[in-house]
């Protein structure tokens, strides 16, 4: 039951209207080959969940430039001017989420929680349309969990069981998203044998990883 797949097999996993979650921060630690696989697949109308939309030509940026995305849920879109332009033109729906709220919403989605009670955004536009709860005298927003049909992740090393380790700041959202999608596909810099990774230093256990791009 090998988890290894080719670019072609990866491309076939994506469908129109899917929700796709991508690791990466400003393109660093983003699965650029899997982004290419999505482009190859000709899939349209993706809802994209990501820290940001990177630059036009890095990370998930090309998904925006190539009109594959109908909605973005992200904390920052400023470094990719295409995102803002398409938003203003009404071609792209953008939901801006504080970055820490995004992390906890994805955690909630992956951990079976009903939502997040966060003080972040109270008294700002982020509060608009949301239920709030007062707990011990303080006000919290009820933020909903986030899950995706497919998570596309980038790891430094994976073994053939899918255990993952990350390098430096390329870790970011990748381990959090590994829990929050029905299908988890990982792109790696180096594929190693089972037993090569120390079980104490594995960050994402292989049981969370469905497919590894060979």
């Amino acid at each position: 039951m090998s988890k290894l797949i080719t670019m072609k097999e990866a491309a076939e996993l994506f469908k129109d209207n899917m929700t796709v979650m991508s690791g990466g921060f400003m393109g660093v630690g983003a699965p650029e080959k899997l982004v290419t696989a999505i482009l190859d697949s000709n899939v349209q109308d993706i809802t994209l969940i990501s820290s940001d939309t990177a630059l036009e030509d890095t990370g998930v940026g090309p998904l925006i430039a190539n009109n594959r995305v109908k909605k973005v849920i992200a904390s920052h879109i400023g470094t990719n001017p295409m995102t803002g332009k398409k938003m203003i033109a009404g071609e792209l729906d953008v939901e801006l989420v504080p970055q820490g709220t995004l992390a906890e919403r994805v955690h909630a989605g992956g951990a079976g929680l009903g939502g997040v009670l966060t003080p972040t955004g109270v008294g700002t536009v982020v509060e608009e349309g949301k239920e709030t709860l007062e707990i011990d005298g303080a006000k919290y927003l009820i933020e909903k969990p986030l899950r995706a049909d497919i998570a596309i992740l980038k790891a430094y090393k994976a073994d053939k069981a899918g255990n993952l380790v990350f390098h430096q700041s390329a870790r970011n959202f990748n381990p959090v998203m590994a829990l929050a999608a029905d299908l988890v596909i990982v792109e790696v810099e180096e594929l190693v044998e089972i037993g090569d990774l120390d079980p104490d230093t594995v960050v994402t256990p292989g049981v969370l990883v469905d497919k590894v791009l060979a």
Partner: protein
Amino acid sequence: MTTLKTAKEVIAERVAKEMSNGDLVNLGIGLPTMVPNYLPEGIDVILQSENGFVGLGPVKSEVSKDLVNAGGQPTGINHSGAFFDSLLSFALIRGGHVDVTVLGGLEVDRHGNLANWIIPGKMVPGMGGAMDLVTGAKKVIVAMEHCSKKGAAKILNECNLPLTGKGVVDLIVTELAVFRVTDDGFVLEELQDGANIEMVKEKTEATFTISSNLKIKQFS
């Protein structure tokens, strides 16, 4: 010979004095990143980068494609640093583990409200980690020039722009003055080199009280 300092340098130098040894500090992009250059002797701080590490420092021998700061620029990490994921990074931020955050500001009002993430009608960059930082950091310092480029006041009775955080600001440092935000509004704590109360009043829309211990910075 005294070298004339820029407004940004004056601000960064003053903000640096707010740091205590060992503080975990998160700096916004731009002016705030100048603060470490002015840390007093014996004061070392640990810098957090919200994309997932502590111990941010200068690039050492070579640039790593996997090591960038929260602005996406190549950076380095100290020997005592550590990497982690975004969940832990924002647990640090929201959970009060960051001692000080220094951010720029478009507007601050006497309720401690801060607006610095969006100007309606202009491109919307997104709040990134700023809303979490102002909510969670133990001390929120706004480091900004006293007025806008067009000369408009930025220290107001009530913010006009959409807020980044409500009642979150502890201190404002400008090239003219240092204001503390209290439950009773702004208190002028300090005048920078060359500034006087009249000048500050003129450039500040907000009402403020003057500290009985008002410090007036000496020419250095």
